[in-house]
């Protein structure tokens, strides 16, 4: 396997080896080709961004990684093994956590309960033991609770722990969704437009949290974002997509000067 060595970022951080590799991914919906023949990889500990204009196929790509879509062609390698077609919940249990573009939270439940569902992937005790609040189930619940409280502290949402999520403003909901994904202690954290629809202040907060998460827990993050400024500041490496094709891949500075990328964003006749 090529390129399994790590690399050093512009600001001097050491990035680990390859964690996930997508090889020649193609996705078709009937006659429409949403993604055609795209390959790229994600290294351990890096912040990897996927950018591109509307309809470029970014969200589809994220949905392939998290298993909501199955690619028509191509292979996905994860931790050095080829990943077979699996259901989204099975992939979640392999350490892939995600947030959604249009917020998918459990509106009727409190913030605390929502974040606790993030720990479901770490549930081992049998249903019977859980029903009776028995030995292992009990220890597990305590341990999960402790980890969840840490995440809640970290994202500064202690004061709304017991509030039903349905009552929260948009920016906070996004943060709760991040907390839930983080509670799973994922190997890869997928963020689908974490800053969409936010005001400047909320965007700054969210950027800070993303950087802190990466820094503090060493979490590998793959994110999609529209806001070019934000992406360039946050990410270590960027994939640029346009009309389902990959038109650029590399560190932000390199991508910024790529003629195809400039064309895609400023618009030239295709």
């Amino acid at each position, binding site marked *: 396997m090529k390129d399994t060595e790590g690399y050093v970022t512009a600001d001097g951080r050491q990035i680990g080896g390859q964690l996930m590799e997508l090889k020649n991914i193609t996705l078709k919906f009937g006659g429409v080709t949403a993604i055609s023949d795209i390959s790229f990889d994600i290294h351990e500990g890096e912040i990897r961004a996927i950018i591109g204009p509307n309809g470029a196929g970014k969200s589809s790509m994220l949905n392939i990684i998290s298993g909501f879509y199955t690619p028509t062609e191509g292979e996905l390698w994860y931790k050095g093994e080829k990943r077979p077609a699996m259901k989204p919940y099975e992939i979640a*249990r392999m350490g892939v*956590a995600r947030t*959604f573009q249009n917020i*998918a939270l459990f509106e*009727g439940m409190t913030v605390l309960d929502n974040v*606790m569902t993030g720990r479901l992937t770490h549930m081992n005790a049998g249903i019977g033991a859980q029903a009776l*609040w028995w030995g292992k189930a009990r220890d597990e619940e305590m341990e999960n609770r402790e980890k969840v409280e840490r995440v809640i502290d970290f994202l500064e949402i202690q004061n709304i722990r017991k509030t039903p999520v349905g009552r929260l403003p948009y920016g906070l909901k996004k943060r709760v969704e991040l907390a839930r994904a983080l509670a799973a202690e994922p190997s890869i954290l997928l963020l689908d437009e974490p800053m969409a629809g936010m005001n400047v202040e909320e965007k700054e907060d969210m950027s800070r949290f993303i950087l802190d998460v990466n820094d503090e827990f060493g979490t590998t993050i793959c994110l999609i974002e529209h806001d070019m400024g934000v992406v360039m500041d946050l990410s270590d490496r960027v994939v640029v997509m346009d009309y389902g094709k990959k038109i650029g891949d590399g560190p932000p500075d390199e991508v910024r000067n790529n003629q195809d990328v400039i064309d895609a964003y400023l618009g030239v006749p295709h």
Partner: protein
Amino acid sequence: MLKDIFVTPFADMVAAPDFLLQVLWEGLVSGILYALIALGFVLIFRSSRIFNFAQGIMVVFAALTLVGLHSFGIPAWIAVVLTLGVMYVLAMSIERVVLRPLVGQPDIILFMATIGITLFLIGGGEIIFGGENKVMITEELGIPTGDSVLEPWGGLLILQHLDITVVVVAAALVAVLLAFLNYTQMGRAIRALGDDHQAALSVGISLQTVWVLVWFIAGIIALVTGIAWGARAGVSFALEVIAYKALPVLMLGGLESITGAIIGGLMIGLLEKLFEIYWGQPLLGGNTETWFAFVLALVVLLFRPQGLFGEKIIERV
């Protein structure tokens, strides 16, 4: 007339407190069974947005299976375990054959599907066990049948041992279910699934596992209510009606609310009994228990359309 409505009943209550206690006790017994059945409805609704029309027939089916197995010479307690097994297989088959192909369909389609399950179970039950009335195997299960007579304030209070058992078992089951739903990860998964399927998948919840589980819980509830009600009224297809008594409970409590189901069930059990004895029999010729709960629910809905405990729906425009 006004005196008959507003004064006499209360005067009677004060004059004979032991009788009032007797009435309340009987109300509590039916109330806790209503609460239990309503909980079965709420669980399935919360995890799949399905209003399970088949809950009533599941009560009949569970009771019939138990009595049927026993009539083949299987000891009572082993028959209970086997019946639980049958309810589990039923839950699995419903998930595999009915729910899984219908994922993502409109609610009304899923509701119609549960009517289909109802008809299937009625037909299947009659073919396998026959349509005639049967007697619940109360004694074989070791459920006490005598009664205790208490004398509060020199009066008279009769507690059937069967009723005491029902109250204790049902209350224990409700308590275990509540703890399970609120303080365990699987319980959280059940509550989460109904809110957002996509999000549930993304945190590793398997739709299939949760659905089988809630239908199995509904099956356990069906068996317990089947035994309790069957011991009083015999096992026949008419038992199905008890599940429909849970409908006003759900209207009162809201389809989403677990606490609502419990409080609503107890309230209806108590109020319908009180109304029957103190207002229904002297003023309306009795037999008000068949309709009282529905009228009560209607009145509540007039003032609180979301039920007593349901989430208020605020439409953003």
